[in-house]
């Protein structure tokens, strides 16, 4: 289990019952696996199957705590696609990027690199909302963290 997942689980354990219920609801809305829903958190989320191999490798890097190297790789890959006007490929990544697993840094980086091309990326709004709700569920200040990335 990655350090990130362990951290999130620790945070979840500290939540009150009402907050847990809210989190479960948020996770359901986001389409993420929840405790006891039959899709164990260690299973690969179906959305992960739709992401390219390089992104799997990058997520592994991020999981190992090498977020900075993962960010550089993510930026180069997305930059290349945006420079070639391959907006559909980038949009597909936004649509299928899992929420469970990647660090918040990586998610914010994806929002950051795609922001100038937002009008070409219909899935970006939903991805932003999913990350926003995750931040809220983690009791982080979502407005302060993500306000500039909308």
């Amino acid at each position, binding site marked *: 289990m990655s350090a990130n997942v362990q951290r999130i689980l620790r945070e979840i354990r500290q939540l009150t019952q009402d907050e847990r219920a809210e989190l479960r609801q948020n996770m359901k809305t986001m389409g993420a696996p929840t405790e006891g829903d039959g899709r164990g958190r260690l299973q690969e989320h179906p959305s992960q199957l739709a992401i390219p191999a390089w992104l799997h490798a990058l997520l592994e890097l991020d999981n190992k705590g*090498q*977020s*900075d*190297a993962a*960010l*550089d790789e993510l*930026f*180069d890959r*997305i*930059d290349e696609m*945006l*420079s070639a*006007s391959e907006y559909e490929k980038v949009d597909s990544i936004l649509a299928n990027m899992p929420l469970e697993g990647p*660090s*918040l*840094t990586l998610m*914010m*980086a994806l*929002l*950051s*690199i795609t*922001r*100038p*091309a937002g*009008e*070409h990326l219909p899935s970006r709004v939903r991805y932003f909302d999913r990350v926003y709700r995750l931040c809220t569920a983690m009791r982080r200040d979502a407005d*302060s*963290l*993500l*306000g*500039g*990335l909308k």
Partner: protein
Amino acid sequence: MDRAHLAAELPPAELRIVGVGIYRSAAHIGVLCREPADKRLRFIHLAFHDDLRLEDDVTKCFLWIEAKLEDEPAAVVAAQARRVYRKYQRGGVPYGFGPYSGYFGPQGEIQWTAPGNGLTCATFVLAVFDSAGVRLIQGETWPTDRGEDKQFQREMVELVRMQSTVTAAHLKGMTADIGQVRFRVLEVGGAVAADSYPTDFSTAEVLALRLLEMIRRKTRRRSRPN
């Protein structure tokens, strides 16, 4: 101001994630961040027209300021600085006084609205932070009628004119942009040192003066005979 340090008193190696470095002259600024591979500090700065640099040697940073950001956005700012460098290390960032607006276009390119637009070392810093969703300043609160700024811009046009790579169209555009708002080095440094972002002009101006005082105090001490 507790995040602003003279390098002689606290070396920039103490930087946690991302910040800015300012030269002793108080006339140049760039982004300080770390390289993932060796975790060593790098100074990424727009040295001049079409001359974006990444320096291993940070000893010219007389003063440095850690940005007040949580770890995640700080890491994204640092990664954006490295990305912009990788993309433009062979040129493509002209020097100029483009209007204060969005800096990057849909293809990740630095966005110019007219020939002659470009960045200064200070607006390069603003652009890098902005690309990570961190708006450092409230640009609309900056004065646009400072005679000294116009004089500075005129002098810079003449310096850029001496560059072999500059085009006539760029020089014409730069000249037309004289009078655009100027974000001075220490004002941008002051903005980074502020307790919250985006910083308005009056706050940045006060902090800029404090930074200048830090530099002067140290340089006066240095020049005193033993």
